[in-house]
């Protein structure tokens, strides 16, 4: 049994929502594989790092945002390529922030605050598209509960 236990890269990601109900997408730099796509905020957890701390670190590194609230978990994803040493699993959270100003890192070249449906329209990556669909579903459920 235990010899079959896998080892994985673990990613944490955030759909950041602003008070206008827009979500943040970042365009990956050409040399940042998969380059050029519109992505959610996030990245790999480091060894010995708590994953919630990893989420905080990635949000700060990629956007400069320090203040946000985690609303809930949205979507688990995995990305397996030919060589299992690249096996990656991740979890995306819905987060809210009042921060307007974004400071990009060298990993991204552009950012956009978009209505969720506009974000879906420009997404070309399955994982990002699924994250956004799950966000829209959960947000609609929360809105209908609060009415």
């Amino acid at each position: 049994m235990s010899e079959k236990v896998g080892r994985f890269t673990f990613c944490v990601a955030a759909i950041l929502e602003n008070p206008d109900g827009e979500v943040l997408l970042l365009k990956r730099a050409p040399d940042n594989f998969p380059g050029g796509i519109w992505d959610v905020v996030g990245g790999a957890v480091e060894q010995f790092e708590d994953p919630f701390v990893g989420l905080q670190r990635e949000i700060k590194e990629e956007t400069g945002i320090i203040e946000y609230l985690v609303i809930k978990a949205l979507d688990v994803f995995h990305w397996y390529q030919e060589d299992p040493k690249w096996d990656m699993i991740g979890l995306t959270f819905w987060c809210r922030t009042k921060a307007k100003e974004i400071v990009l890192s060298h990993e991204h070249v552009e950012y956009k605050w978009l209505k969720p449906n506009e974000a879906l329209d420009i997404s070309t990556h399955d994982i990002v598209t699924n994250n956004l669909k799950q966000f829209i579903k959960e947000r609609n459920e929360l809105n209908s509960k609060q009415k």
Partner: protein
Amino acid sequence: MKGKFMVAVAAILENHRGEILLIKRSSHMEYPDCWEDIGGRLEQSESPEDGLRREIYEETGIEDIEIVKPLTMFHVFRHNEKKAENELIGLSFWCKTNTSEVKLSDEHTEFKWLHPDTAFDLTDHPALKRYILLYMLEKGLTKKRFLHEFEENFYNV
């Protein structure tokens, strides 16, 4: 630097009466006689959803499973030893089944379908208490925040 982790998947498994399943660990295992949720570690190249279905089947014999949604993630070092090879990140999911009949493996000796409040009181496991609370919040069963860890990581909407 990216880390390498074992990944575990765990289920808050709900039946048609809105009860959730807890199972009791065998006395010959680590953490003997503790009540826990269902779950285990993923194999290499196994998807989290496949791993979750496999673990639920191995530990309970239940095959009809609807995976509703993920609840949260957790972080532990196995055997309480802070080494990279012991480092594990877990994902807990809310799942539903129409089956109430349970066939335990030899890793467990007892099972109970419990109201989430009762399950919360029965377990001593802080992480499990947290998933039960998140599950209850998702179901609209409570608006209270009880736990420090919970307040740290989640905002109650």
